């Protein structure tokens, strides 16, 4: 900060008597405190309103009895009153300012920097020019019965500080256009309706993305050989769920809380000291719906970026109070450092790097951070595209469900249906589950997708029940990630309770590989599910990780014979042998078996002859969208039951 000594600070006292007036001895140290305070707060101000409230607070401490007004120069070179205190005296102060323009005192202040003038024995006025060496921004007015010399000096310094803030706000514009209120009667005094300085986000009060990018731009331009610019992007994990489950009002409240909490955590001296920066080197902004950006200028030690992430994590760790209980939210943080040279010399490049890091952090699970390094540039991108596609799909309900019928092999009655998840690109081309499910599992999105599926199936069950169709159970696939997390049963039970669907209508399908992921938790989940009345089936039986162990140890309902053992049936002796053995073993253990992937009449006949209870496959019925399922299978069942009745 270059604070050239302003000539007005050297101006002589108005009368010699004033210098020796009592109170000066205690006032001067107070003035220093006030200035120190102002120097701490002004760089943090983002709007004119904030700036004036700091100035007013400081000025009230220095001259408690004074009325104040600020006039800013407008594009047409007129001066407009933009704030006054007390507000009720707007008319009076406006009149007084006009009188001082008439009398030439205003001009004197503009020319010389200050004008102290005693109009009446009981009233003195101080006019100070708000200006930097480059530009005049306006004039500030104080009026009181007496303004001591020391206070005047302090106010002069305060005005200079304000001018520097205005210069920072203005960013090259010639002057501040402030909406004027002269046309309408003053109700409740002046309000700065359109605060022209730094655009703030209505909801969180943080700076907008546009300002964030401007800040980055300036910070990048001001890099020195020993400093760089750090950028962090922070995303609240699973925030769309908060909105969906608690409603948007609650979501907004939480977003506000997160913003304020992080803002306070960042504007702490201990934090600045760790990084060796000042408050004005920091810009915290809302850069997206549930995304925040933090830019750090003049960063000397980029290795501290890790600590920043840890610092931010620690401030959200305890969670948020929500309707009397604790809501845990976590942040994923992507960090990027501009380096000292031209590596990332545009705000866009820096943001892109931080965004890549953010995606990487998300991929490694929730509540994590990652620092961008140039060597992992393109490798992850298709994956990342799928991830954001999933996010979009969840937000816009772009997933859909298909249903594949299950039949009893002896009487060919419809005994159930497997629910299959489908996702289409925006252009309509399908993305196979083998592509998106692994991504969803690695990002944790699988849990949200799983909830969506369950809810959707429940809706459908109710709809079909209302139409009077057969009350068959529906099988939902549960991933390894979900199976290795606690409270799986609770999740199902909660959704089913809300949808008023009985537990026996949902069958859960799990693979052995999924069990192997966390056997202990999987076992606990399966037990709980069974106790709650859900059927649990082992999917793809025979191809997985440890087939027989799962049969022995887990309280399952039945097994689904993998298509691998069905596809070569009839003719291939090995395939026949395995199929027969599995069916025999299952029979002995009293597990019902569903054969998967029945594609020919011969396969069907073979399995039926070997005592397999039920089956599914293209030969019996392909997975089809909801409407087709209803038309093809329920209409059918209805007709059947109509005939048999």
């Amino acid at each position, binding site marked *: 900060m270059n604070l050239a000594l302003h000539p007005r600070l050297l101006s002589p006292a108005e009368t010699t008597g004033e210098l020796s007036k009592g109170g000066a001895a205690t006032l001067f140290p107070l003035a220093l*405190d006030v200035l120190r*305070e102002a120097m701490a707060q002004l760089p943090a101000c983002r709007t004119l309103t*904030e700036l004036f*409230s700091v100035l007013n607070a400081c000025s009230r401490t220095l001259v408690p009895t004074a009325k104040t007004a600020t006039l800013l120069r407008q594009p047409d070179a007129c001066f407009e009153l933009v704030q006054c205190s007390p507000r009720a005296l707007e008319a009076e102060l406006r009149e007084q300012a006009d009188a001082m323009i008439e009398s030439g005192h205003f001009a004197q202040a503009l020319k010389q920097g200050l004008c102290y003038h005693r109009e009446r024995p009981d009233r003195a006025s101080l006019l100070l020019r708000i200006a930097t060496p480059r530009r005049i921004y306006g004039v500030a007015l104080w009026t009181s019965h007496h303004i001591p010399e020391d206070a005047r000096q302090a106010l002069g310094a305060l005005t200079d500080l304000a001018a520097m803030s205005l210069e920072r706000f203005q960013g090259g514009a010639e002057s501040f256009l402030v909406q004027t209120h002269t046309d309408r009667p003053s109700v409740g005094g002046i309000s700065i309706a359109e605060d022209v300085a730094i655009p703030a986000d209505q909801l969180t009060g943080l700076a907008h993305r546009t300002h964030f990018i401007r800040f980055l731009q300036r910070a990048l331009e001001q890099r020195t050989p020993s400093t760089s610019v750090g950028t962090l992007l922070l995303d609240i994990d699973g925030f769309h769920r908060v909105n969906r489950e608690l409603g948007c009002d609650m979501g907004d409240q939480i977003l*506000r809380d997160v913003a304020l*909490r992080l803002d306070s955590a960042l504007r*702490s001296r*201990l934090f600045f000291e760790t990084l060796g920066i000042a408050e004005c080197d920091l810009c915290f902004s809302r850069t997206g719906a549930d995304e925040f950006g933090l830019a750090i200028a003049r960063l000397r030690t980029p290795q501290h970026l890790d600590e920043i992430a840890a610092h931010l994590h620690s401030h959200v760790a*305890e969670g948020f*109070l929500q309707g009397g209980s604790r809501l845990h939210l976590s942040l994923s943080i992507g960090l990027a450092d501009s380096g000292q040279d031209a590596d990332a010399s545009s705000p866009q490049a820096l943001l892109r790097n931080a965004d890549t890091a953010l995606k990487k952090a998300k991929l490694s699970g929730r509540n994590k951070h990652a620092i961008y390094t140039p060597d992992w540039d393109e490798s992850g991108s298709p994956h990342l595209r799928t991830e954001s596609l999933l996010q979009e799909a969840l937000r816009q309900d772009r997933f859909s469900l298909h249903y594949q019928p299950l039949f009893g092999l002896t009487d060919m009655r419809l005994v159930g249906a497997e629910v299959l998840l489908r996702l289409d690109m925006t252009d309509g081309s399908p993305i196979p589950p083998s592509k998106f499910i692994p991504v969803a599992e690695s990002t944790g999105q699988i849990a949200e997708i799983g909830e969506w599926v369950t809810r959707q199936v429940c809706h459908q069950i109710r709809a079909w029940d209302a139409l009077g169709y057969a009350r068959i159970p529906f099988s939902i696939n549960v991933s390894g990630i979900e199976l290795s997390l606690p409270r799986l049963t609770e999740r199902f039970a909660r959704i089913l309770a809300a949808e008023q669907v009985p537990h026996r209508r949902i069958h859960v399908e799990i693979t052995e590989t999924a069990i192997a992921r966390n056997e202990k938790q999987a076992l606990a989940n399966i037990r709980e599910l069974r106790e709650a009345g859900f059927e649990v089936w082992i999917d793809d039986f025979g191809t997985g990780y440890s087939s027989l162990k799962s049969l022995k140890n887990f309280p399952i309902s039945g097994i689904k014979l993998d298509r691998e053992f069905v596809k070569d049936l009839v003719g291939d002796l090995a395939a026949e042998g395995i199929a027969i053995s599995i069916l025999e073993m299952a029979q002995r253990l009293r597990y019902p078996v569903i054969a998967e992937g029945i594609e020919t009449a011969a396969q069907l006949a073979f399995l039926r002859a070997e005592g397999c209870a039920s089956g599914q496959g293209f030969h019996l019925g392909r997975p089809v969208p909801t409407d087709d399922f209803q038309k093809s299978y329920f209409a059918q069942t209805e007709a059947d039951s109509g005939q048999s009745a």
Partner: protein
Amino acid sequence: MMETKGDLLERLDELPSLPAVYHRVRQTLENPDGSLETVAAIIEADPALAARLLRVANSALYGLATKVDTVLRALTIIGAAETHNLVLATTLVSVFRDLPLGAVSMRSFWEHSIACGVAARVIARVGGRASPDRAYLAGLLHDIGRLPLYILEPHIMGAALQAHRDRQGHLFDLEQQFFGSSHAEIGAALLRGWAIPEVFCAAAAHHHRPALAEHPAPEIAVTHVADLVANSLRIGTSGARWTPILDDLAWRATGLETAQLRAVVETTIATTRDVTSAFLEH
């Protein structure tokens, strides 16, 4: 609005209470036959508390010449009166450390409180008018009334904070508007409910308006000034984003000279970081 206040005062018992170990220590200290040995034994029965207490005792707060590694030794060095304050501070921070708040993290809250306590201790020592030990605890407890506001009335507090963020006034004044009360009043009631010695209740009650205290005590003035120091240094926050206005009489009552302020500020910054980590880090 007044209902909010009455309602809040009635609901203070919904907050976590001070742990039994604090009450046992206090009884022992007040008992003429009690000894520091007994106190140490009570504390050591709770290993987490004992470990935390040793960390705080060894922090820059007490400036012990050598590191102490037993509770009894720590208590003997700091003395019986300070033992009470140390146990109260340690148990209180532990009880409230991991609770969720709203727009302010519990960590920021305690950082501010600890900074204020540390500043109060330094001011009392330099100014020479208040007892450093009492000033420290008064500073540490001064904003405790914000916790009930956050925990019991999160929505109203959220609205008050938003108004504060939108620069509609000091948070203290906005609390009056929104609750018909303030964290100062609620805090004093909470501390009285816990039967904390009166000087700390009075400091909490009057730290924003020291001139209104019926019985002015140097600890009140010191807490007021320490709160300003902590706020203007911005070490943590209990919600307020602006520094309160200085009460001139309180400033004089601290006995501090302006020239000493720099040293006070520097010591506060240096000490707070260490004390914060002693209280809060795992």
